């Protein structure tokens, strides 16, 4: 498992832990509330850390995370964040319809390749992680090395 895959696995685990914390029996809602809040904080901090790290990788133009098409975390060099959000929303919706017709299962990633740049969108828990780079960059290779 290369660097980015291990980071994604860690993020997915934190998202799962957060979801689990919401399903704990709520006999003491005050304690449960604190647990849920802390788990969400851990997840969100991990998302921001990963976005920051990916945004600094050589060959990667920008990285951001979206929820329902709205910006949630972004690397320093993120241009056109609203356009990215709209693209994420449209792409995910179209892909979900296609996936249902073709029996693909839940969408894990979508890649749009243009003549000059490309965008990869990856589902992580309730979020979509968006990575953009020039077309000729091999994303798997670029993301394989620890930052």
């Amino acid at each position, binding site marked *: 498992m290369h660097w980015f895959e291990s980071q994604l696995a860690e993020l997915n685990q934190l998202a799962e832990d957060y979801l689990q914390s919401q399903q704990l029996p709520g006999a003491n809602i*005050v304690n449960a509330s604190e647990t849920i*809040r802390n788990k969400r904080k851990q997840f969100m901090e991990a998302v921001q850390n990963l976005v920051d790290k990916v945004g600094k990788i050589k060959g990667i133009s920008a990285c951001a995370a979206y929820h329902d098409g*709205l910006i949630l975390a972004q690397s320093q060099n993120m241009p056109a964040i609203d356009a990215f959000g709209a693209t994420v929303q449209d792409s995910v919706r179209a892909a979900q319809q296609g996936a249902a017709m073709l029996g693909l299962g839940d969408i894990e990633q979508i890649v749009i390749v243009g003549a000059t740049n490309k965008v990869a969108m990856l589902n992580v828990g309730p979020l979509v992680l968006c990575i953009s780079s020039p077309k000729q960059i091999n994303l798997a290779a670029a993301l394989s090395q620890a930052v």
Partner: protein
Amino acid sequence: MSNIHLINTRKSNSGEIDSILRNLMSTQGVTAAAIVDSDGFVTHIQRDSEINTDAIGASVQVVFGAAARSAQHVGHHSTNMVICENTEGYILSTPIEAGFILAVVTQRDALLGRVRFELKETIPVLKKLFNNFLSN
């Protein structure tokens, strides 16, 4: 003994509500987080600068009420969130229980998706806390 327990429960519920508001304040760009009751009075607030709490409370209730009526006019049923996009930032308001509303004021540089995500995830817990609080 049971009376003492009752008071402690109310106190800890209220303390947890303040903790939730403080947590919202730690989100980038958020400058105030408040709970407003059905009459427009602020019952809990966390803020990083002086703001007119009476004005915030009343205006949040008015804006939310107007948005909710608009939603009903177009057949959208209940309103889950109202987002006011202003020149210098956003005001987001979300219903909790019994007419109480959670309102968050942000600067322009706030990440709207982040604030909205926090609100959406916070509301189910706040609803339980309020049910607990109001039933004691």
